[in-house]
C-alpha cells in the first residue's frame, strides 16, 4: 500500500483493524468501524496538509480550510476570525475618519456663522451710514 501523507499504511491498517476487533461488533457495526477508519484517514490527511500548507502558495488559506474541515470551532480558528477582524478594523478606521470629518465640518460651520454675523453687522452699518448721509443732504438748510 502506498503511503498516505506519511502515515504508514500498515500501522494504520493494523490499528484500525485492532479497533474494529476490540469492538467485537457484527456486520452492521462493521460500517461504523469502516467509517471511523475513513475518518481517521481523512483526519490524518488533513493534518498533514495543514502541516505542509505554509510552504505552498496560498498556504494560509489552505491551512484555514484544512483546519476548518477537521471540525475546529469557528471562534477558535485564527484564520476565520482574522478575516472578520480585518473588516472590523476597517470599519473602526472609517468611524474614526468620520468623526474627524464631522469635527472639521463643525469648525467650518462655526467660521461661516461668524463670517455671516460680521457681514450682517457691516451691512447694517453701511445702510445706516447711507441713510443718515442721504437724510443729512436732503434736509440741508443753509
Amino acid at each position, binding site marked *: 500500500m502506498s503511503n498516505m501523507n506519511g502515515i504508514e499504511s500498515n500501522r494504520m491498517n493494523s490499528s484500525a483493524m485492532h479497533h474494529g476487533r476490540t469492538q467485537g461488533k457484527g456486520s452492521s457495526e462493521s460500517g461504523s468501524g469502516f467509517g471511523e477508519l475513513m475518518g481517521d484517514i481523512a483526519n490524518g490527511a488533513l493534518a498533514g496538509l495543514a502541516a505542509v500548507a505554509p510552504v505552498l502558495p496560498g498556504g494560509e488559506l489552505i491551512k484555514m480550510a484544512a483546519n476548518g474541515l477537521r471540525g475546529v470551532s469557528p471562534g477558535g480558528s485564527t484564520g476565520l476570525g482574522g478575516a472578520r477582524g480585518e473588516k472590523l478594523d476597517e470599519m473602526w478606521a472609517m468611524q474614526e475618519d468620520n468623526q474627524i470629518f464631522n469635527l472639521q465640518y463643525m469648525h467650518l460651520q462655526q467660521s461661516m456663522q461668524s463670517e455671516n454675523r460680521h457681514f450682517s453687522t457691516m451691512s447694517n452699518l*453701511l445702510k445706516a451710514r447711507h*441713510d*443718515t*448721509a442721504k437724510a443729512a443732504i436732503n434736509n*440741508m438748510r443753509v
Partner: protein
Amino acid sequence: MNAAQDAVAVQVSAQELLKKAYLLLSYGQYEEAIAACEEASKVAPGHPLAAVLKGSFEMAVGRINDALGTLRAVTNRHPEHPLALIYFAEACFLAGRSAAAQRALAQLDKLTLSEALCEFRDELVQVWDSMALDIIPPALVADIS
C-alpha cells in the same frame, strides 16, 4: 427777497454738489467726491455738512489722519452737530484712539438724536465691540444699491 433767493440758490447749489459728491463716492471716484465736497464748502461756508462728508469720504479712502483733522475742526466749530461727532468718533476708533472715540460718543449722548442717527450710532458701537480693527475693511464706502 434777493437774500432769500440767494440763500435758496446757495442751498440748492450746495445740495447738488453734495449729491454729486455722494454719487462720485459710490462709483469709487474718491478724489472727485472730496473735490466736490470742498466746492460745496466754498459755496456754503457756514454749513458744516460739506466738511463732515469730506471727513467721511477721507475715511472711506483710508486717509484716517486727514479725516481726523477735518472732523476735529468741524466738531470744534460745531460741537453740537451729531453727524460730525459720529464720524469723528468713527475716525478715532479707526485710528486706534478708543478713549477719544468714547469721549466723542459721550458728547453725542448729550444731544437729541433722530431715529436714523440713533441707529447709526448703535451700529457703529456694535461694530467696534464685535470686530477687531484688522477685520474691519479699511474703506467704509457708501452704498447706493
